[in-house]
């Protein structure tokens, strides 16, 4: 892996993700404007902001689901440069959880979890299954291992999606509104799983409007609007006294809806 040499800083406090002056356009639409962000190892970040502000775009750039026009993105010492080599290296260290779960419907829960380790890491079926069972236990869904996604509730599917990403043993997990598509009674089981993950020291970047979760686990809250990072703060000070007027009105709306 090319990452090890570059990332071999023994202190371990080199950032896991660095975004420098990142700009992204969709056609003529300027979706990310001079974004600068650095995520330390073990850090938990909550990304919030109004709909269309570029939160999804930002985290999707980290694993190259979107390409950027200018700027630099470095993940675990690997500079993302559109080369297959760098994209592979980054994706194998970055797990992602989507709003709509995106489980593979034609595979069982267990097959969903073993596919990538077998095909990407080249581990044996037996080893992949052992790992998958361990993570399915951890998200408390092991008893459903042989079911198909359609047989599970939304909350269960999302926990499977988390386990599937963890099976690649990533260094960082990206969450894109993981509870937004869930019925209210299922939000908690997914958030609890994420809190557990945070407790175990996982580096996490979470796009979410769950302010309770942000208060509980975030080291930093980042507020975006119109493709820009407008404010970064510890959760307590952000929620108590947001500095930017847009953040204030955004928080007002969020609280009014809850």
């Amino acid at each position, binding site marked *: 892996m090319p990452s090890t040499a570059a990332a071999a800083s023994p202190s371990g406090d080199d950032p896991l993700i660095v975004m420098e002056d990142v700009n992204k356009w969709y056609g003529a639409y300027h979706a990310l404007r001079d974004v600068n962000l650095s995520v330390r190892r073990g850090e938990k970040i909550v990304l919030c902001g109004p709909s269309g502000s570029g939160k999804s775009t930002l985290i999707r750039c980290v694993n190259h689901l979107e390409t950027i026009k200018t700027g630099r993105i470095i993940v675990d010492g690997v500079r993302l440069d559109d080369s297959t080599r760098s994209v592979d290296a980054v994706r194998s260290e970055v797990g992602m959880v989507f709003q709509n779960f*995106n489980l593979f419907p034609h595979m069982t829960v267990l097959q969903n979890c073993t596919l990538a380790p077998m*095909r990407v890491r080249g581990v044996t079926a037996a080893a992949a299954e052992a790992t998958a069972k361990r993570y399915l236990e951890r998200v408390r869904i092991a008893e459903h291992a042989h079911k198909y996604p359609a047989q599970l509730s939304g909350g269960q599917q999302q926990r499977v999606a988390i386990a*599937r990403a963890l099976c690649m043993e990533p260094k960082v997990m990206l969450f894109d509104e993981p509870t937004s598509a869930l019925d209210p009674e299922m939000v908690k089981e997914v958030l609890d799983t994420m809190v557990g993950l945070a407790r175990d020291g996982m580096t996490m970047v979470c796009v979410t409007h769950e302010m309770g979760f942000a208060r509980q686990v975030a080291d930093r809250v980042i507020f975006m609007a119109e493709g820009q990072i407008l404010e970064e703060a510890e959760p307590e000070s952000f929620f108590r006294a947001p500095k930017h007027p847009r953040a204030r009105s955004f928080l007002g709306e969020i609280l009014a809806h809850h």
Partner: protein
Amino acid sequence: MGTTFGLGELGFLIQGLKWTVLLAAIAFVGGGIGGLGVALARTSTSRALRRITGGYIAVFQGTPLLMQLFVIYYGLGLIGLTLPAWVAVAIAFTLHASAFLGEIWRGSIEALPKGQFEAAKALGLHYVPRMRDVILPQALRIALPATIGFLVQLIKGTSLAAIVGFIELARAGQIVSNQTYEPLLVFSVVGAIYFALCWPLSLYGMRVESRIARAAAR
């Protein structure tokens, strides 16, 4: 001349049926492989590949199968390739089927939710395992009714091979009819054989379609 329609005549029709089935099978297998290539090219990131296969599909969907048979059968002769009639016909049907199956499967690949592609990429799956393990199993399943429908068209379409002198089922029927002067009887038998071949397939296609619709409605 003037024989009656008996076992010998029936045997002659069965000979023709063999060719019909063989031709349809070759076209379907060849078209399956070619069509997969076309569908992958049509959905690839390479603009050149998309253009070339797009043109190929346009030509084969925009002209009659009969004309394709003529052009390929005599065209191969013109460029000095003297192939047995059945090989030339098989090539023509394979090219025809590749275009149609390619277009059917392109549609079903593109109909899958984008999230399926993204989840596979986010997990680090490369193009080959991404398509083979994640995308194609789902896409081919959606496309199964249309694929079976095309196979039925293909079986009936093999009758056009008669035009270049190929004795498949329909042509065999014509010959027997000319010998026995019993066109109504002979073509009833020929029709019944086509029906026995195609109807179960159509029925299966409809079953699969309603099963998929039920699964989607869940």
